[in-house]
């Protein structure tokens, strides 16, 4: 009895825990904080610079800018994964956009706008193709989007073999300019995340998408056009991949067929989404968790640079982290189900 009355501190912790549980907050934010603290310690002991990265605004901004490319497409990936689908074609869509943008713009500032419109139209077509193959031809989403990805890759590589054309310098302001201390690209990322959050949480379509992902048959029987809802999610996902491609090409000035696959946008967008708390089985999750997942990846990436890890070793670590992170989540969710 005495013990209970004299220990008020656990109740605060318990209350915090209950708050987190009641709101169904995924553990990704905790992991982000832990990795952030661990990065500071690592930098303190093994850093190759004298200065700690948290006191270096350039590096801090860089972490955010690094998140832009992956973050935008990961929002789209979150949409399709909430709908219990997946998109493995995004990396090739990024490549198609990057090459298409630099080829079509050909350095001319007055071609920027219609090129962007053409590329978004291409993204819509790719999304429609993915969605139609999945919903009408009943092909498993992994296979359908892998197949569409291969077709894009084949067509792209048959047409272009290297960097093609370039984007005008005015277009590069997307990647390099800032409003005050905040880079435009980071604002775009937050804009995309906000729009994603709004659609998922504040519109009827968002609620329908969760319903389709949670129980497709039930959603269909209660009168939802499940096919249309899922296809629209795929269209939005492909359009985010186009936006990522536009950001990538504005950073590189010119696009090559390998920029999307080398960036691992397919695998990392899925991993970031899963880490962010969206279930692979669909019906659960959200874009803020995904953003935290993306930040974890850029933080780790920055850290590897700070302590000077070999490029190939970095690739090994990336692969291992993706497997372990996804494994941790799937293992945990299976354990919860019993």
């Amino acid at each position, binding site marked *: 009895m005495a013990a209970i009355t004299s220990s008020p501190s656990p109740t605060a912790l318990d209350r915090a825990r209950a708050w987190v549980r009641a709101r169904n907050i995924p553990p990704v934010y905790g992991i982000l904080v832990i990795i952030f603290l661990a990065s500071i310690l690592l930098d303190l002991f093994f850093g190759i610079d004298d200065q700690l990265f948290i006191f270096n605004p350039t590096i801090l901004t860089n972490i955010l800018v690094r998140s832009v490319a992956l973050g935008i497409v990961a929002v789209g990936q979150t949409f399709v994964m909430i709908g219990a689908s997946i998109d493995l074609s995004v990396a090739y869509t990024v490549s198609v956009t990057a090459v298409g943008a630099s080829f079509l713009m050909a350095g001319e500032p007055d071609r920027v706008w219609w090129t962007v419109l053409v590329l978004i139209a291409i993204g819509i077509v790719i999304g429609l193709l993915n969605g139609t193959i999945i919903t009408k031809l009943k092909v*498993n989403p992994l296979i359908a989007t892998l197949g569409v990805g291969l077709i894009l890759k*084949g067509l792209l*590589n*048959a047409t272009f073999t290297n960097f093609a054309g370039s984007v005008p310098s005015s277009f590069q302001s997307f990647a390099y300019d800032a409003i005050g201390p905040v880079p435009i690209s980071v604002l775009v990322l937050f804009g995309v995340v906000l729009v994603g959050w709004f659609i998922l949480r504040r519109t009827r379509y968002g609620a329908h998408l969760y319903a389709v992902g949670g129980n497709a048959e039930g959603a269909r029987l209660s009168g939802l056009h499940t096919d249309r809802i899922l296809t629209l999610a795929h269209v939005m996902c492909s359009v985010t991949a186009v936006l990522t491609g536009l950001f990538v090409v504005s950073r590189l000035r010119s696009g090559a067929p390998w920029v999307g696959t080398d960036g691992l946008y397919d695998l990392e967008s899925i991993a970031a989404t899963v880490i962010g708390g969206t279930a692979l089985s669909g019906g659960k999750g959200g874009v803020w968790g995904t953003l935290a997942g993306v930040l974890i990846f850029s933080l780790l990436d920055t850290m590897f640079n700070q302590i000077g890890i070999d490029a190939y070793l*970095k690739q090994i670590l990336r692969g291992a982290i993706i497997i372990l992170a*996804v494994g941790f989540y799937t*293992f945990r969710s299976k354990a919860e189900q019993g």
Partner: protein
Amino acid sequence: MTQITATTTDSASAGARVWGWLRGLNPVYLIAVVLLVAVGYLNPVFYQPDSFLTFVARAAPLMILTAGQVFVLVSGGFDLSVGSVVTSTVIISAILANNDPGATWWVILFLLAGGVLIGLINGAVTTYLKVPSLIATLGMLLIVRGVGLFWSGGAPRGYLPDNLRMWGRGGIEGLFGLRQFPYAVILLVIFGIIYWLLLHRLNYGRQLLALGDNPRASRLSGVNVNLMRISAFVICAVSAVVSGIMVAGRGGVSIEAGTGLEMQSIAAAVLGGTMLLGGRGSVPAAMTGALALEVLFTLLNLMGLPKPLRDAVQGLIIISAVAYTAYSTRKSR
């Protein structure tokens, strides 16, 4: 009764019986024959025994790889790491052997052991950590390629001794009056028979197919599902190493040696009627699928189409095969 059956078989014309047999046959054999005829028409030299065997030897690595992939596919998984296993086998064999013929045998043993290890990890991650095999093996793709590039420093180095190269480009001289009977074809036959026995003649294969068809039923009937799945990944990774040794011998050392082979092996298996997500598949049909894919590539080449279009063709094959399977199962219900 016996008389009736006898008369019906008698009355059925030979043509009808052949037709019935043909209808039961996997369409991949027909596809392969049509493609082979088309290539022979465009390039008559193709049918000279020597050049045809050279072609089969060139197709052998993909055929062995596809046979291994079939084991993972019928169990309900995917292995996307095989391409980078081939690449790393090529890179690491050149570094380790470094033109010393005496080293060949332990290098081969070392690589096979590496294959077993990769298969074990792939299998353990998918079964115990419950990571979808597509993501697990994509991660493994990064890891294996990273190890190969890290070891070599990013550029190929070292040389392959002749007795390691022979599996890809050597052969028995003067056999059957041929210029050369390739070792690759001998390996192909040996592995083909082993895999055929494993999947179609042993209890193991029956259990693996049953597992892919209905994992729950397999588990309830007392099959060690996890062990079966892991074994399939081990068979697949070891096939990738064998195929890598042949690729190294044929094409020499390159960091692009195995790029794209993972999708080629899946497309070939699907072309051979293997059902993705498990339950149905055949080793000879899948290997014929791989041969057909190589013939198709040769044909595209003869028609002067750019090489990267191969990827697009594979994408179309995979989607249409799976769509067709989905359509026919819906219709039969």
